[in-house]
Every structure is written in structure tokens, then in C-alpha cells.
């Protein structure tokens, strides 16, 4: 028998010789559907959110096709209303909110803490099932004929006039909310109670701080959406006037309650993105993050301030000018902690030996696009400009710069960064760089023209528009095509890499962090022995010293 090492062999049947890990520990469908392993649950989430991402993407693409020409010639206005509604609902409730926390957070967070699992593994699995039940309602609504209220379900249209499937879709959103609440709760308890010996709060990776802030927002904001949707469903079923002014209700109260959740939900989407970016910046600059404590506390500041700005969605809904001024001021304050993060990431890169692997390309994209999205958010926080551009494509471009340019860029950065840890294989670098380039170019070509066309007056949510807006709309649709190619490409090469990718070692990036001290893919209980942390976050010399001592011991 020859003594080939694993690295020499091109491909080895996992069951025969590979070391036991979470992927080959058990086989069979039930070992996945009933698993309590946070890593396997993360894989279940990868599949589910990816499906919803492409469903939501198809709706977006159909809208862009319709908007190629000024006439509303491809879809009727009713169908178009359903397209943008379903695009919003699927992307927000079923992709953006769960994407980074439930996939990357689930997989990486317990390993970063040196824990064997999340605090409540059964509840973790339960939250995936709750998500899937909510998602089933979403799919049912899509098949049964759609819903046309916009993702915000504004009353009284949603409760009294729309004759589409409002009840089923709000029930789906209500149910899915509990999935995020349970995930957030699980993360919070795990971060508080399951840290490895020596892992003090200020030694935590910044990913953990940001996910912590996200979980606080999830846990305190989502129940308010739940009760709001309960009231909406009661009004729709009983035809009573909770929010319908014709029956004595107050529609603005609905908007207040809805945005009390849905504005913090923006931070539920972007804070996990910032979590990933901090990790990647530290790994690919090989430096400590500049101003660690500022970045850590800015996450908590964003989470806190995020609760105080909701009424900036209501500037034209008839709220008092004095409260509008206060909410305008508070909305601008949120820019401070966000800017602290951007400045600290760039300061970390200054005079560092940056290596330009794919995750770092996405990070660069994120920093630029998030800055544009954030600065245009300041425009919208200013009362005068908001009245001018309200409900125009300027708003659409602004929040897509945050959600797509920010969150999805960060999600892709994270998927590439931790792909070797999750699968034990490297993705193909050339193709990944190409797709990062396509995403960046496609994204800007899609959404930058929307700033321009919105500023000169094109309203959102119409299938027809004035002919002078056509050039910018054609550019936008062309960009969407490139963007779509940029999103399909990773699907192909990541699947390819599962079998043909180069084998990754425990620490392919030479990065600091507990997740890089355990084999790729990790064993079922994450570590063979409970690790002891003796280094500060991103402290390369201390980490290398600790690793050498472990090997010698």
C-alpha cells in the first residue's frame, strides 16, 4: 500500500478515506431534514434562499423587459402591479432578511465562538421549517395569481379594495417573521453564553458584533410587524375600520406601525453585510481592523438609531412638520456610525498589502456602492428633496444601492470567502473574478440611470412612462441583463467546484479566526477539542504564535 497523502490525490471518495466531517458523518435525506447541526441547517438555508433569489430575480427581469419601451405593451398594468409586488415580497422577506444571518451566520457564528452548536439546535431547525411554511404561502400566492398591493401592503387598498391574495401573502410574511425572531434569539443567547474560554467581548470578531446588533433589531422589530399584520388580516376578514378611514380607522397609523418594523428591517439586511465586510477586509489586508471598538459600537449605534427614524417614510403622508423635522434630523444621524465603518475599512486598507482575491473585489464594490446608497439616503432624509423625489425612481435606485449593491455584494463576498470552509473546496478564482466584475458593471448600469430618471420625474410602479425617459430605461434593462449573467455564473462554477475545485486546507486565506483553526469542512462538533482563545481579533502575530504552540503541544 502506498502512502499518498490527501493533498496528492486528485479526488478521493469521501466515505473511504476522508476524515469525518459534518458532510460525511451521516447520509440520507432524513439526516438532513431532521439535522440539528447548525452547519447542515445553513446548507438547507443556502438552497432555499437561492431558489427565492432567482424567483425574485425573474420578476425583476420581467419588469425590466416591460420597461424597455415607453408603452405598456408587454404586460397589463394589473400584471405589472403583481410583478413589482411579488419581486419586493420575495426578495425582502424570503431572501434579503434571512440570507446572511441564516446562511453565513448559522454556519460561521458558532465556529467563530468556539462553540459546538448554537444554544438551541432544535429551535434552529424549527426556524428553517417555519421559514419554509411561510415560503410555501409565498409560492402558493405566486401560483394562485399573485398579489398587487406593493410589498408594503398599504391600507385601505390591501384590506378593502384589492381582490388578490392579500390574506395568504400577509400570513406568509407573518409566519416567516417568527423564523427570523427565533434565529435572532438563538444567536443572541449563543453569543452571550457559548463563547470559548478566553474569548472576551473585545476579542470577538467584528462579524459577531454586527450579527449581535442585527439579532437585537430582529428580535425587537419583527414582533411589531407581526401584530401589524394581525390587525391587517382582522380588518380584511371582518371588514372593520382599524386602518380604513371610510370606516373610522387611521391609515397613517398602519404606515407608522409598518415602518416601525420595516425601517429597522433595512438594518437587518445591511448590518450582516457589514459583518462580512469587516471579516474580509481584515483577511485580505492582513491587518487588524482600524479602530476595532469604533466599528463594534457603530453596529450597536446603527441598531439603536434604526428604531428612531421610521417616520421618514411618511414625510408626504400628512404627519406634522415638527415631527418630520425631528425624524429628518435623526435619519441623518444614522449616517455617522455608517460612515465610521466605511472610513475604518478604508483606513485599514491604507498602506496594507491588499490581495485581490474575489471576496476582496466584492468588498471594494460594497464600499463604493454602499457609500453612494448612503449618501443618496441623506438626500432623501432632507425634507425638501424628499417631497420632490418621493415615489420616484430616485428612491428605487437609492434602496437598491443599499440592498443589492450592499447586502448582496456582501453576501457574495461571504459565500466566496467561507466557501472553502463550508465545502472543503476552492472556487475557481478566474471565473469568480469575472463574475464579480459582471455584477459590479451590471449593477451600476442597471441602477445609476434610475437615479437620473427618477430625479427628472419618472414615478415608480408604472408599466408605461413618458418617451423622453426611454434611453435611460434601455440602459437600465441592458445593465440588468449583465447583472443576471453575473448572478448565474457563480451558481455554475460553485456547483462545479464541489467536485472539481482544488482542495482547501484549514486556512486557505491565512486569516485570523477560530473558524480557520478547524479542518475544512469542519467536523460535526466543529472542533476536536474546545479551543482556548489567547489572541485579540485579527491579531496576526499572536494568532500565529498560538497556532505554533498548539502544533508543538
Amino acid at each position, binding site marked *: 500500500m502506498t502512502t499518498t497523502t490527501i493533498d496528492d490525490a486528485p479526488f478521493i471518495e469521501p466515505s473511504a478515506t476522508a476524515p469525518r466531517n459534518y458532510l460525511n458523518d451521516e447520509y440520507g435525506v432524513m439526516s438532513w431534514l431532521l439535522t440539528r447541526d447548525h452547519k447542515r441547517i445553513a446548507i438547507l438555508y443556502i438552497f432555499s434562499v437561492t431558489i427565492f433569489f432567482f424567483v425574485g430575480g425573474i420578476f425583476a427581469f420581467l419588469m425590466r423587459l416591460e420597461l424597455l419601451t415607453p408603452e405598456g405593451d408587454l404586460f397589463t398594468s394589473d400584471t405589472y402591479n403583481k410583478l413589482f409586488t411579488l419581486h419586493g415580497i420575495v426578495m425582502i422577506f424570503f431572501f434579503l432578511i434571512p440570507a446572511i444571518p441564516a446562511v453565513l451566520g448559522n454556519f460561521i457564528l458558532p465556529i467563530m465562538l468556539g*462553540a*459546538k*452548536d*448554537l*444554544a*438551541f*439546535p432544535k429551535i434552529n431547525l424549527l426556524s428553517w421549517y417555519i421559514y419554509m411554511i411561510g415560503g410555501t404561502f409565498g409560492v402558493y400566492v405566486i401560483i394562485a395569481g399573485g398579489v398587487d398591493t406593493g410589498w408594503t401592503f398599504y391600507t385601505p387598498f390591501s384590506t378593502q379594495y384589492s381582490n388578490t391574495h392579500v390574506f395568504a401573502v400577509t400570513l406568509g410574511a407573518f409566519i416567516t417573521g417568527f423564523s427570523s*425572531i427565533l434565529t435572532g*434569539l*438563538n444567536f*443572541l*443567547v*449563543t453569543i*452571550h*453564553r*457559548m463563547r470559548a*474560554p478566553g474569548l472576551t467581548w473585545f476579542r470577538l470578531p467584528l462579524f459577531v458584533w454586527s450579527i449581535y446588533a442585527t439579532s437585537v433589531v430582529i*428580535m*425587537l*422589530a*419583527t*414582533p*411589531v410587524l*407581526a*401584530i*401589524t399584520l*394581525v*390587525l391587517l388580516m*382582522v380588518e380584511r*376578514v*371582518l*371588514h*372593520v*375600520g*382599524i386602518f380604513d378611514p371610510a*370606516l*373610522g*380607522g*387611521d391609515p397613517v*397609523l398602519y404606515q407608522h*406601525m409598518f415602518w*416601525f418594523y420595516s425601517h429597522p428591517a433595512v438594518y437587518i439586511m445591511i448590518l450582516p453585510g457589514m459583518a462580512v465586510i469587516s471579516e474580509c477586509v481584515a483577511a485580505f489586508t492582513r491587518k487588524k481592523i482600524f479602530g476595532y471598538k469604533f466599528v463594534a459600537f457603530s453596529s450597536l449605534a446603527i441598531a439603536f438609531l434604526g428604531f428612531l427614524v421610521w417616520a421618514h417614510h411618511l414625510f408626504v403622508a400628512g404627519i406634522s412638520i415638527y415631527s418630520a423635522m425631528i425624524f429628518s434630523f435623526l435619519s441623518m444621524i444614522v449616517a455617522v456610525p455608517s460612515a465610521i465603518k466605511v472610513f475604518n475599512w478604508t483606513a485599514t486598507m491604507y498602506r496594507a498589502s491588499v490581495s485581490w482575491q474575489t471576496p476582496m473585489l466584492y468588498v471594494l464594490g460594497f464600499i463604493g456602492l454602499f457609500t453612494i446608497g448612503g449618501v443618496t439616503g441623506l438626500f432623501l432624509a432632507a425634507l425638501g428633496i424628499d417631497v420632490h423625489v418621493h415615489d420616484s425612481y430616485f428612491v428605487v435606485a437609492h434602496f437598491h444601492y443599499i440592498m443589492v449593491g450592499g447586502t448582496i455584494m456582501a453576501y457574495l463576498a461571504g459565500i466566496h470567502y467561507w466557501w472553502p470552509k463550508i465545502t472543503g473546496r476552492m472556487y475557481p478564482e478566474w471565473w469568480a473574478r469575472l463574475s464579480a466584475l459582471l455584477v459590479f458593471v451590471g449593477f451600476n448600469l442597471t441602477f445609476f440611470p434610475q437615479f437620473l430618471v427618477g430625479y427628472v420625474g419618472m414615478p415608480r410602479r408604472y408599466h408605461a412612462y413618458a418617451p423622453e425617459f426611454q434611453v435611460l430605461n434601455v440602459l437600465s434593462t441592458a445593465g440588468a441583463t449583465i447583472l443576471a449573467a453575473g448572478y448565474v455564473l457563480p451558481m455554475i462554477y460553485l456547483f462545479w467546484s464541489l467536485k472539481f475545485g482544488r482542495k482547501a486546507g484549514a486556512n486557505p486565506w491565512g486569516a485570523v479566526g477560530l473558524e480557520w483553526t478547524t479542518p475544512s469542512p469542519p467536523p460535526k*462538533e466543529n472542533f476536536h477539542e*474546545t479551543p482556548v482563545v489567547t489572541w485579540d481579533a485579527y491579531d496576526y502575530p499572536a494568532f500565529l504564535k498560538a497556532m505554533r504552540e498548539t502544533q508543538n503541544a
Partner: protein
Amino acid sequence: MRNPTLYDLQHPGAAGSQPADDAAAHHHPFLQHHFEDLGQQHEASTLGMWFFVAQEILFFGGIFCAYTIYRVMYPAAWSAGAHHQNWKIGLFNTIVLIGSSLTMALAVWGAQAAKRKFTTLMLVLTLLLGSAFVGVKGYEYREHIHEGLFPGSNFTYVHHEDPSLTHGIELFMVFYFTMTGLHALHMIIGAGLLIWFIKRAWRGDFGEEYYSPVEIMGLYWHFVDIVWIFLFPLLYLIH
């Protein structure tokens, strides 16, 4: 290993203060594999329930907020709506529920003291009192529906002294049914958990080292009681 927690100080010997190679401390039948010791497991589950209660406060907080706004919008109608409630039944139910909180607290004490029969008895009493509450609530609902007070197309009630208040009273009843209905739903979920815990308590699962399920059940039960302590004056007493 980890830093000592409050649980460890109260339970010297139960937690990781023992040497790591002491197998007894690591093989308690209810110690889950991903925790170091029972102390960590206890702290985690208690903290989890506190966080859950925090999100419940926001859940009920949303509807209390909406309630307040409409109370200010329709003061006369809401006063009439509250006046129409039978406060004696409400008071009776309040006493029943506070009684169930007492038996629940005694059950937690019994579980900590490893008194198997006492714990089971107290949990059964909690279940009976909770069911009595829900039963009385059902009786009240039946009376309201009988009077035509259920909102929507079945709403036939007319306020005789001032018919213009009728519409506001319907809105009051929307909130009455939604708030008490959500509260009753929490009671029913609690009752389901109690049945499971009665079985576990009778089997002798709980003792000095392992009683956290009963304790967090108690946290939940007391929280649901406190919600009622707010609902009772808001829906029955304030005129």
C-alpha cells in the same frame, strides 16, 4: 473552564467547577451535547426565555399602542364599550389567573427541591386554573356574540342611549377580541406545555441540578399573566 455564573455559585458541585475528567458532571441525562455543563445549559435556556419575553412585549406593545390611539380618538364610545363589559367576571378571572401564578411559582420551588409529587400537583393545579380562565373567557365570548357584539357583518348591536357611538363600540370590540384572543392563544399554548411538563415532572425528570424547563415555563406563564393584568383594567375598568 468558563467563568462562574450565578448558577454555579448557587450550585457548587453541579457545574464545571468540578475537574473536567469527573465524568459524572458531564453525563447528566439531560445535559445536551453542545453545552459544557448543566450550569451553562441552565443560563442559556433562562436567557433565551427572557429574550423571548422581550419580543412578546413588543408584540403586545404594538396593539396596546393602537388601542391607546383609538381610545383617544373615540373616548365616549370606548368608555361605553368598557362599561358594557361584566367587570365581575373579569375580576373573577383575574383572581383565577393570579392563583395560577402562585401554583406555578410553587411548582418551580418544588422542582428545585426535588419534590416530585408536590411539583406535579402544582403543575396540575396551574393547568386547571388556566383552563378555568380560558373557559370563563369562552363563556364571555358566547355572551358577546349573543348580544351581536362580534365585529363585522354579524355586528347587530345598537347603543340605545346614543346610537352614534355604535360604530366606535364596534372598533372597541375589534380590539377587545383581538387582544383577549391573542392572550387566550398564549394561555392555550402554555396549557399544552403544562401537559407535557406534568408528564415529565411525574416521571421525575426534575431535581436540584436540572429544573430549568419548569423555571422557564414559569417565566412564560407569569408573563402571560402580566399581560392580563394590563388587559383587565384597559378593557373592563377604565370608563
